[in-house]
């Protein structure tokens, strides 16, 4: 393919082609310079977070910000957060259990993902491979709910959660979102694209039940698609803030996002950036692991969600 592209139209004269090549090469050099500078800028907040967590607070507040801690990196912020080093006159820190909050977030996100992937794949399979009365109408109804703005029923939803006694539990993040319009749509697309009708037909003839077909045939084949949905919802639930900050008010149940936000608010005039950054690093590590392991699937999910949605 590359060879066909690089073939020049015969009508072009040698001289113009040569100058055009130089111009193009110059263009590429400028492009690289620009992209590299921009990359540095894009990466910098991550660097700031990481290096900031390794600097004592006093050094973070020098007149000029430092690229590297002048007194060498220190793990003090982490030791304080993990209560390995006893907190000095910071009462708030004594009741701040970062690992528990990260654990809460992981628990909330993992269970949400398992539930969502199962129910969405189940519905996606039916819409992709089965035919039954009102199928198209029901599918359109699902898609129409995507147009409902989140804000429209947020307040009454919150009141409902209170009435159900779900405050300070993770149920509001597990149950209402168990089957979502986006998830069903995405899973249907994947199943249509990856699973031929014939194998489902032959399994039906062999007497397999729909549930068996779903769990023993469809799900193993389309693990790839399920991973895409799993990662997108994992990132979404792990990073959720609006609802969690309103629902998870109890110190024991709050997620790491809520805990860190409260930590900032507890000392808004002179934030303990060293501790905040250390906490942020610990909160971000699971996501970075997920990102680097599954980056292809994440990108695929984002692209398919946008273009077809």
């Amino acid at each position, binding site marked *: 393919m590359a060879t066909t592209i690089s073939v020049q139209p015969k009508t072009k004269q040698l001289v113009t082609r040569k100058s055009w090549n130089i111009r193009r090469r110059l263009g590429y050099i400028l*492009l690289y310079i620009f992209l590299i500078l921009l990359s540095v800028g894009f990466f910098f*907040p991550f660097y700031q977070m990481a290096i900031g967590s390794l600097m004592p607070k006093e050094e973070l507040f020098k007149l000029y910000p430092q690229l590297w801690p002048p007194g060498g990196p220190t793990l003090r912020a982490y030791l304080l957060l993990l209560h390995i080093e006893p907190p000095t006159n910071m009462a708030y820190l004594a009741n701040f259990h970062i690992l528990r909050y990260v654990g809460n977030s992981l628990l909330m996100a993992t269970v949400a993902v398992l539930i969502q992937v199962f129910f969405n794949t189940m519905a996606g399979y039916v819409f992709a491979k089965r035919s039954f009365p009102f199928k198209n109408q029901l599918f359109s109804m699902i898609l129409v709910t995507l147009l*409902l*703005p989140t804000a429209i*029923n947020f307040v009454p939803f919150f009141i409902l959660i209170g009435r159900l006694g779900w405050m300070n539990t993770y149920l509001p993040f597990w*149950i209402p979102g168990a089957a979502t319009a986006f998830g069903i749509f995405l899973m249907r697309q994947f199943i249509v694209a990856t699973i031929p009708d014939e194998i489902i037909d032959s399994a039906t003839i062999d007497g397999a039940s729909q549930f068996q077909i779903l769990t023993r045939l469809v799900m193993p084949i389309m693990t790839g698609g399920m991973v895409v949905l799993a990662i997108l919802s994992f990132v979404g639930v792990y990073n959720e803030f609006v609802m969690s900050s309103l629902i998870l008010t109890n110190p024991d149940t709050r997620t790491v996002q809520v805990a*860190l936000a409260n930590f900032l608010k507890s000392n808004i005039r002179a934030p303990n950036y060293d501790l905040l950054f250390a906490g942020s690093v610990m909160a971000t590590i699971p996501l970075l692991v997920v990102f680097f392991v599954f980056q292809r699937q994440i990108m695929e999910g984002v692209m398919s969600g946008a273009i077809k949605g």
Partner: protein
Amino acid sequence: MWRHRVDYLFISPFFILFLIFGLYPLLFGIQLSFSRWQPGKDMVFIGLDNYKTLLLTDPELKQALLNTIVMLLWILPTGLGGALVLAVMLNARKLVGRSFFRTLFFLPFVTSQVIVSFVFQSLLDKDYGWVNLLMGLVGIPPIPWLTQTFWAQISITLLLHWMGMGTNILIFLGALQAIDRELYEAAEIDGATATQQFFNVTFPMIRPVMLFMIITATIGLMNLYAPVVLLTNGGPGGTTLTLFMRMIQLMTSIRYGEGAGFGFIIGGIILLITLVQMKFLSSWWTVEGKLKQ
């Protein structure tokens, strides 16, 4: 119907959950928005009073709407335009390291708005932040990023740029790669320059995606919450208050009736803007049937 009971069973979770957690709150919200109510007390029907209060006497609604429009004017050209330009660059035929750059720009996708807010707070600090230090090197005086009305809005949009650019680039790249190469080859043979190719081939082909993203960005900005709470707390002087944040304020001060009404006003605004954008840009939508499905 009975024959298909398993099929209906498999799709029933969505519909049951939607009835309980989508439709019921919606209907309850309608009732609530016409009532005065506090938990433990009787609900009193008060007609349009909540809406009257919100629309006529509550200055926050107007302020939040204005903020959203101003921030939208900042974010659409640079956010979407910038992402498109970057996507075109990354789509350059002989670019080495395409996937490296793509991954790097996309990395902020996994970070949380909460954490990004801390990091930007320190980067944009007037006295100790990197941004002012670097700008000082070229002689620009320190900018009060988070404490002055105009700059606070810019700060929020900067954060949103950083978080969303990678996703936008990715979506544009997907659209660009769907364009038939032959169109460019034909244009090249006709002697079209790179710029002409961009405006006459690339741009028309990605219009539907562009429209989708304009609408998504608009809705996203109205629903913005974490960064405005944590980075600027709606301030200074209410200039970074968003519609969603105002609704939460009403809710947490137990003004449920007004909060529910505010939700419908936001919903109405979103619907209106979506329709206007689709109408206004409808020629875009229909010109190219190719990407439309």
